[in-house]
């Protein structure tokens, strides 16, 4: 458990964590040992000369003082370590997520990641801050007490120590049998969270389809599954809890019986027996709390295990000795790529010399967007190589590659915030004039002027508060502002009216002169200004050449052009 915690946290936390755990263990031992002094104290008090208790009482007082100092320090240390860990965990988690390949992000992941980032990390941190100390004390203090008993009376001590392996075995078995149930429960939780997010975001579609909560089974099923899973957890936890209680109580009963028997036989003093029974009660309480603590630790552990899996997932492999690309030309060299069994890009070879523009045309589903994603190394190719400036993208440092490329995606996503914040994401240190120039080229200035909020208009989550065309223009401005030497444009004017569309393309052309551009477009007039056109169908390049050449050839491209014209 602690090993896993340490692995998840990373090496820099090993030492403070170890220290804290050691401190907690020492505190627990101190507590147990201090009880040893109860024996002489009570022997005196129950005996004929209670005054004899005084020195022993003073000793007990001193022991408690030592315990108090230790306890106070270990509590504080637990809190501190917990808080420090939390911070480290969040950063580690966030940075790692940002580096995972995009293929790892399916719709269902929202649930898992958000549960983890919210309750999950907090729970993992709570292990250090709240759970570890009671848990260690619940294990170590009773053990120490048993040792103390053994030291004073081997018969009572032996009877008590029988409980040790039994309790340990029960805890171990419960832990094992619960692991699967806990995992299942976490799974259901994630699923339900993902469904709730989907349900909230798909409200327009669901309502127009007449599907309210009652009729959206997927959500209700997932909520029901959470309930079922939590029932199962309770049912499977119950035997363990009952067995533990039974074992502890049996120990207490045995000590009671044995004590009564020994006392009646006169084999042991009444004061000793009574002291041992007080000690036994001191053993029983922490042991009983083990089942609750164990449960909480287990769920924290399942979170940690998941974190461990996520953090253990390799991001796209980084080159050991990254090469800096010199130029900004782009090349696909016999590239193939599959989504599952489906070959989406099939042996594509293409090259775009620096400063030139390539238009990719083809039916929807041909693999155009995928081609752009391969270039930005959102995925790695299955065969062949994608090169930028003559260097395989796999040999380029991730950040360096991203700095070379500006992308406008087919599906626009804006972050909740203002228009300005979203545009500036392209280059946070850009001068105002540059922001304005990018906005003008993207025809965003018209939007900013028209909206009452101007630059500080809120765009809403994903950009939901803007119209489709406005959103698209924000994302174009964002990419233009980035001022990268390679520009990838994926159907960037699909939501724009013809007037704006023409203007935006002129703007892009003006601002992106001299850049290497790869663009996907369906409207052929945007395409005809490109230096080269590649016609993609079923992941293969069917035709390639300049607009005029392809028209003259009278092939697929020319057909497209005709249909588009004919209406």
């Amino acid at each position, binding site marked *: 458990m602690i090993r896993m915690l340490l692995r998840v946290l990373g090496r820099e936390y090993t030492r403070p964590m170890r220290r804290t755990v050691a401190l907690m263990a020492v505190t627990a031992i101190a507590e147990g040992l201090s009880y040893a002094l109860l024996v002489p104290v009570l022997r005196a008090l129950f005996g004929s000369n209670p005054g004899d208790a005084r020195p022993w009482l003073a000793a007990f007082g001193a022991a408690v003082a030592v315990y108090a100092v230790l306890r106070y320090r270990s509590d504080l240390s637990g809190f501190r370590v917990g808080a420090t860990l939390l911070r480290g965990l969040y950063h580690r988690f966030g940075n790692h997520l940002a580096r995972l390949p995009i293929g790892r992000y399916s719709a269902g992941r929202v649930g898992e990641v*958000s549960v983890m980032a919210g309750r999950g990390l907090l729970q993992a941190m709570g292990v250090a801050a709240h759970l570890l100390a009671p848990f260690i004390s619940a294990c170590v203090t009773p053990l120490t007490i048993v040792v103390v008993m053994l030291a004073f009376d081997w018969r009572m001590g032996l009877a008590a120590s029988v409980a040790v392996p039994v309790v340990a075995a029960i805890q171990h078995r419960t832990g094992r049998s619960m692991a699967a149930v806990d995992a299942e429960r976490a799974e259901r939780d994630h699923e*339900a969270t993902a469904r*709730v997010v989907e*349900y909230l975001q798909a*409200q327009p579609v669901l309502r127009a389809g007449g599907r309210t909560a009652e009729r959206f089974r997927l959500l209700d099923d997932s909520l029901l599954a959470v309930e079922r899973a*939590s029932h199962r957890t309770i049912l499977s936890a119950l035997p363990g809890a009952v067995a533990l209680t039974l074992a502890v109580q049996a120990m207490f009963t045995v000590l009671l*019986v044995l004590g009564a028997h020994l006392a009646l036989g006169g084999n042991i003093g009444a004061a000793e027996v009574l002291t041992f029974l*007080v000690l036994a009660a001191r053993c029983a309480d922490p042991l009983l709390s083990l089942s609750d603590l164990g449960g909480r630790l287990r769920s924290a552990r399942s979170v940690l295990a998941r974190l461990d899996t996520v953090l253990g997932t390799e991001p796209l492999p980084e080159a050991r000795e990254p090469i800096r690309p010199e130029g900004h030309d782009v090349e696909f060299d016999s590239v193939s790529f599959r989504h599952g069994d489906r070959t989406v890009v099939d042996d594509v070879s293409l090259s775009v010399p620096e400063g030139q523009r390539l238009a990719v045309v083809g039916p929807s589903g041909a693999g155009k967007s995928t081609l752009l994603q391969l270039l930005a190394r959102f995925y790695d190719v299955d065969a062949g190589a994608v090169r930028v400036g003559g260097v395989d993208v796999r040999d380029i440092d991730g950040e360096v590659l991203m700095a070379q490329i500006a992308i406008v995606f087919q599906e626009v996503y804006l972050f909740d915030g203002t228009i300005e914040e979203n545009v500036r994401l392209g280059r946070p240190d850009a001068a105002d004039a540059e922001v304005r120039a990018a906005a003008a080229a993207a025809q965003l200035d018209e939007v900013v002027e028209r909206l009452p909020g101007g630059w500080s208009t809120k765009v809403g989550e994903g950009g939901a508060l803007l119209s489709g*065309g406005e959103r698209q223009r924000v994302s174009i401005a964002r990419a233009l502002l980035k001022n990268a030497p390679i520009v990838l444009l994926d159907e960037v004017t699909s939501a724009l009216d013809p007037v704006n569309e023409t203007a935006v393309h002129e703007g892009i052309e003006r601002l992106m002169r001299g850049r290497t551009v790869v663009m996907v477009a369906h409207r052929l007039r945007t395409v005809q200004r490109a230096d080269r056109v590649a016609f993609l169908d079923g992941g293969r390049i069917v035709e390639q050449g300049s607009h005029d050449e392809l028209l003259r050839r009278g092939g697929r491209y020319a057909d497209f052009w005709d249909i588009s*014209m004919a209406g």
Partner: protein
Amino acid sequence: MTTTDLAGASVRSTPPPDAGPATGRSAAGLLRPYLPGFATVVVFQVIGAIAGLAPLLAVVELGRVLLSSGPVDHGHVWFVVVAGAVGLFVRLLFTAASSGIGHVLDSRVQLTFRRQLAARLGRVPIGWFSRRRTGELAKVVGEDVGAVHPFIAHAPAELVSAFVVPLVSLVYLFTVDWRLTLITLVPVVLAVALVPLMTTPTRRREQEEFDGAMGRISSSVVEFVQGIAVVKAFGGSGRAHRRFLTAADDFVGVFFRWVRGVSGIAAGMQLALSPPFVLLVVLIGGAALITDGGLAPADLLPFLLLGLGLTAPVAALGHGFDDLQAARRAVGRIRDVLQVPPLPEPAHPVAPRGHRVELRDVRFGYSDDHEVLRGIDLVLDPGTVTAIVGPSGSGKSTLVRLLPRFFDPTRGSVALGGVDLRELDSRELYRTVSFVFQDVRLLRASVADNIALAVPDADLDDVVRAARLADIHDRILALPRGYETVLGDEAGLSGGEAQRISLARALLADAPVLVLDEATAFADPRTEQAVRRALATQAGERTILVIAHRLETVADADTVVVLENGRIAERGKPAELLAQDGKFAAFWRSRRSAIADGTGTRGVPRGDELR
């Protein structure tokens, strides 16, 4: 196991709450059916807890017997021992049952809350969502409901063991020796004295900041995952996911401050309540009273055994305090959502006559200071195709959103079959109008379920027919499990493919009014042509409203409406409008000029024939 049966008797797993009567219920009202269950939990807990005192009292009694001078009554000793053991057994039985029932009850209550929240969220006005973050709302349904757990599963048990047991013990100890009882209470008083320090306004503010920061993490993480492509593309040195990291740092900052403020006090409190300290106090007091005050040594025993139990209420307050506070705040957030007024439904719905759609002087703005639609008069006659064109941001999608009542107009009215939408039963409305929205939204469900969204009981033949019409059937067959493939999990689709699925969805609904908002924006010319032809064969008596930017799409419409800045700038037949040489003609020209400056000379636009 008896626990589940008991719980089951009082609360059968109810079907999802019916939208009608349930909506008015408050959070407390929701709990009412579970009261018998709670009562059982509490009663069992009381029995178990009191039985738990038996073994301790047995030790006390044993002490009295052993320490008394005089002959020991063996029979009495063994009776005491047996009584103690029986007490333990009873305690085991009842506390286990109580905790089992408590937890089962808890998950039932959580389910009820979640269903209720979902039902309410499915009925609040759509506009309400656009001002909220998905992550925060999802947190209310998920985590906040979960945070109620200590209230329900633990509170009864903890309250009982925290108050009933100490109370009983206290009474008993007073009868033994009132002076030592007071001394035993010293640690409790010390700890209680520290409690106010933990509930100062500062602490409380920190708690609220704590929740706020947590909410921000939840919402930023949804953005983080859904916008991951942007995060990667613009994420040089963590820029784009900075929002997440900032939210996390804020949270940790608040947490740190809170820890710094509270940890000292909390640790002090824990110390005051710790067994060694309590024992020390009892022993010092006991020693003094035994030597000088005439306390019988045997009377010290109950204090050593039961005295520790007196600290339970304060310990529970200290330890469970945070949880309970958090639960209270979570309940507050849940109540806030449950109290959002739903979109009003008509008390006496009127049935529409026919399905002509009429907009009369419709005005609408998302906020008061900015009107998006400024007086729209528009009639969509059955059997006609109306096309809306206009610059982006002119209000086309907004107009479309009034038809499913996502928003109600601020002035004027939208009527279907002569009835104002506000007087129409919403089911009737959704049966009559089907939509393809500009923002495609597929569910993480099978392709067939996605297409049959509005008609869950449609058979596969109908689904396939709709898919063929939308020109997506072949692609679906190429998916790993055809129509059964779960989108998002098993396969993804390209933008154009997704658009065609949502088109198939609208076609399957087969509603008399069909509204398409840029439904083929991502389609290539060939697909677009195929889809347009399919729609043409569908037309018949149907009323169709299309928003499109390609004039080829618009050219076949019966009426074209040019929307500009929330007003209708032009309307008429496409050919007439071109002849008028107004806005529509200007649009058309901008497109033609773009073509003309290329060198391609094939395919003279046939649009010219319209002139």
